């Protein structure tokens, strides 16, 4: 029974005032605006999934950073936007290098029409022309241990004199920016637009690394001016300039009007038909601005995309399930309600994942039959279908399909999945139906899909009697644990540093253990031998034979079970985004994308 009072009193009055205010706020909010599009400027709006560690090319080695760094800076080389498989092309170099001295000397002619972007570190604010000395400076800085603790190992031991310089800079004890005091024997500017690099042996790796963002060219004036804060005031020769960034890692970029590259004139077969060569020869970049906010969670990113706020988002497992599907023939399509307005791309990533055993565990390590049984029981295609919505491809070696000498190239297959056979092996191993086998700890960093992934493996392995329990922890604890050998089974993975198979196969050598890889501490002399040989053998049949033998050793001894390579899927609006061919290697899609401004402002009619 509620007693109704006449005078409601102060409390209720506050109530009503509050709701009145809120209501007026509602109506004042123009909430379906499309985030500042004026209908004239071409703005590419893409979502970043997380904040990068640094915008200083030599300090960063993670993908979120590289995503922006490749737009702000240039390296000597890059990869062709359209051609597949990847093809290296010159960027700041005028042409591909000339090799001499049985492949140990690279002479690189540089472009003479490149300028650094304008900035207050230059005299009267105008960017100066790029010259050969900038290359020497940048590469020396790349070797500076106080700047670069991460990526130097990529060319460690490959450039004459560079390792010594790196050691010398350590001895000095301070962060140095006077690189003139540290001349490198193998790095010389022959003239204003030519440099010569001397390698310790004939190898393509330095060229490949020189195409990466970690070896971008930086202007010494800006580093002299800003020192350690250079990462917060990035300036390079790149296609875009950073206009604004914030704590979250949001980035607003504007076009560099004097960029030196043009849209490719040829592509892969079928590109012309898809309309990807319409802008052939045009000056890059094609858009005026890029707006790239960081949205770490799937829901807000997808919802905003569906409201027309973005021109490109990647899809994670949940977002994929909502917007797309994989057909029986292995095609990725958007769901019917979206298919008129939204396009989808699927690009294979140069990464690979495998189950790693801890060989130092006495039960697992000593019992090869047990490992083979597991290797035969793991359901790799099932994992792809059930845990990552089919966005993957089964790998039979640790080399991803995007790189030469993958399992198809070398004609190699892993065990076909055979539960009956696996059970027999279990019995032979001394554990019929898993009797007498203790539980194994499956260690994993915590995260969204981990439970699903673990659960899938748990069920599969339970079929042959192997029981696993999950142990999750923050990523850093995880690294410590597996590095310390405190695990039984884990899923390990690797993303290519450069597109060479040896980058993956060498991860399982004995030497790799000392470098913080090969967590299971597997060691096989013949495998190590072969791995060293592949480093000095040029690509071809002989090299493939070596990789094949290495794959056979792994199949025989099963230190790891190769699982899958990732297929990255994303969506973009069909009606106003053009020239989009997902380039995972260079990450410089944004240079080539064009936007139909009028249709962009119209948005979706979903």
């Amino acid at each position, binding site marked *: 029974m509620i007693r109704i009072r006449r005078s409601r009193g102060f409390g209720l009055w506050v109530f009503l005032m509050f709701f009145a205010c809120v209501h007026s706020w509602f109506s004042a909010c123009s909430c379906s605006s499309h985030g500042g599009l004026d209908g004239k400027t071409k703005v590419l709006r893409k979502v970043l999934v997380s904040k990068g560690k640094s915008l200083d090319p030599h300090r960063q080695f993670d993908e979120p950073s590289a995503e922006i760094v490749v737009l702000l800076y240039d390296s000597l080389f890059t990869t062709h936007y359209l051609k597949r498989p990847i093809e290296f092309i010159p960027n700041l170099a005028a042409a591909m290098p000339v090799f001499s001295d049985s492949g140990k000397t690279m002479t690189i002619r540089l472009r003479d029409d490149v300028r650094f972007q304008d900035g207050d570190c230059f005299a009267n604010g105008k960017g100066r022309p790029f010259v050969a000395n900038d290359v020497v400076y940048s590469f020396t800085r790349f070797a500076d241990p106080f700047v670069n603790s991460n990526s130097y190992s990529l060319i460690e031991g490959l450039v004459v004199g560079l390792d010594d310089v790196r050691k010398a800079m350590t001895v000095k004890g301070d962060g140095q920016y006077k690189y003139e005091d540290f001349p490198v024997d193998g790095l010389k500017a022959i003239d204003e637009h030519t440099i010569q690099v001397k390698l310790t042996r004939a190898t393509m790796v330095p060229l490949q690394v020189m195409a990466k963002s970690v070896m971008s060219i930086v202007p010494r004036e800006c580093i002299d001016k800003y020192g350690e804060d250079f990462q917060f005031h990035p300036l390079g020769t790149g296609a875009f300039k950073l206009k604004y960034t914030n704590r979250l890692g949001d980035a607003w970029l504007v076009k560099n009007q004097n960029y030196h590259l043009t849209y490719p004139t040829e592509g892969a077969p079928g590109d012309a038909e898809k309309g990807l060569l319409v802008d052939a020869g045009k000056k890059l970049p094609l858009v005026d601005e890029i707006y790239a906010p960081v949205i770490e*969670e*799937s*829901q807000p990113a*997808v919802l905003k995309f569906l409201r027309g706020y973005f021109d490109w988002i990647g899809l994670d*497992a*949940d*977002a994929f*399930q*909502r917007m797309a599907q994989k057909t029986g023939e292995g095609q990725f399509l958007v769901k019917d309600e979206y298919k008129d307005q939204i396009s989808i791309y699927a690009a294979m990533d140069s990464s690979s994942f495998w189950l790693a055993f801890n060989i130092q565990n006495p039960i697992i390590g000593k019992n090869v039959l047990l490992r083979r049984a597991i290797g035969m029981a793991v359901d790799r295609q099932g994992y792809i279908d059930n845990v990552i919505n089919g966005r993957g491809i089964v790998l039979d070696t640790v080399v991803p399909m995007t790189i030469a000498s993958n399992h198809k190239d070398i004609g190699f297959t892993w065990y076909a999945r055979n539960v009956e056979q696996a059970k027999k092996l279990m019995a032979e191993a001394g554990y019929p139906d898993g009797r007498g086998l203790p539980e194994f700890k499956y260690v994993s*960093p*915590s*995260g*969204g899909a981990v*439970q*699903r992934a673990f*659960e*899938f493996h748990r*069920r599969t392995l339970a079929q042959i009697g192997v029981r696993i329990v*999950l*142990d*999750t*922890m*923050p990523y850093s*604890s995880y690294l410590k644990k597996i590095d310390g050998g405190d695990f039984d089974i884990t899923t390990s993975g690797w993303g290519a540093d450069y597109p060479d198979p040896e980058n993956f196969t060498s991860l399982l050598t004995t030497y790799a253990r000392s470098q913080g890889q090969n967590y299971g501490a597997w060691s096989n002399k013949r495998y190590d031998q072969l791995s060293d040989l592949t480093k000095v053998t040029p690509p071809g049949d002989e090299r493939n034979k070596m990789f094949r033998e290495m794959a056979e050793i792994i199949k025989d001894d099963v230190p790891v079970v190769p699982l899958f390579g990732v297929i990255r899927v994303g969506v973009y609006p069909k009606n106003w985004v053009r020239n989009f061919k997902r380039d995972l290697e260079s990450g410089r899609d944004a240079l080539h994308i064009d936007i139909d401004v009028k249709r962009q402002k119209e948005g979706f009619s979903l």
Partner: protein
Amino acid sequence: MNKNKNMTSAEIVRGDTLWRRASRRLKASRLTMACFVIIAIYLVLAVLGYTKWIPDFQQQVGEKFMHPTLAKPALWLGTDVFGRSVLFKLFAGARTAITLGVLVTCISLPIGLCLGAVAGYFGGKIDGLVQWVYSVIVAVPYILLIIAITYILGKGMLAICIAMGIVGWVGLCRMTRAEFIKLREREFVLASRLLGASDGRLIFRHILPNVMHIAIVAASMEIMGAIKAEVILTYLGVGVQDGSSWGQMIADAPGELLNGIWWPTFGVSLTLFLIVFALNRVGDALRDALDPRLV
């Protein structure tokens, strides 16, 4: 007493204690009794969770993400991504949640009460010391401490309980201390002291009962808080991992809700609602029943 059988019509007055009065009051409301029953059910589920009497939530009972149907009890709340029964997962989660809630409260409640009483009553240096301890603990953000302590104690139920217990007593301590400060100047305390009561007796027999209602409400909030904190800790990757946990089901919510799969989230929310409501109701009722001033 008077055994005169002629007094059958009159009430026989027995010595009434606080507890008997309280239980009478409690029994008066049907809703309150229903809430006791709900709590009992959860407790039973929790205990059963440690035995084999509870259905195995790992078993697949249907297709993935089936809608709730009335067909089988297992399907009353539908299935999850692996076709497991949401209902059974909730049962399994009860074990984690209730154990957590009870253990954390058993650790934090005594600490908070005693330290708060001692600090509030004696004041001076002891008060200063207790204040220092809880200031240090409160000053460090909760999440930081919990995660840091799990680094020391490792993962697992006991570690998390100890971590939450060590950090969670502060609220009750502060409240208790405030009450003690208020009450130590009250007339009944002064009177008892004049009559020669010792400090210990004053604290435990006289003032503390007046503070019990706060403790009980705090206990129910603590249990509830522990259960809800587990959700956030699981989201951050530090939660309990053996078996199913409600926190894990909620952590799965973002992906599921994005795809219109509402029933696991609904199931967990409903489960949480019932236990939270029951705890609140019982807490309030106990406080009212045990309040010595409502004669």
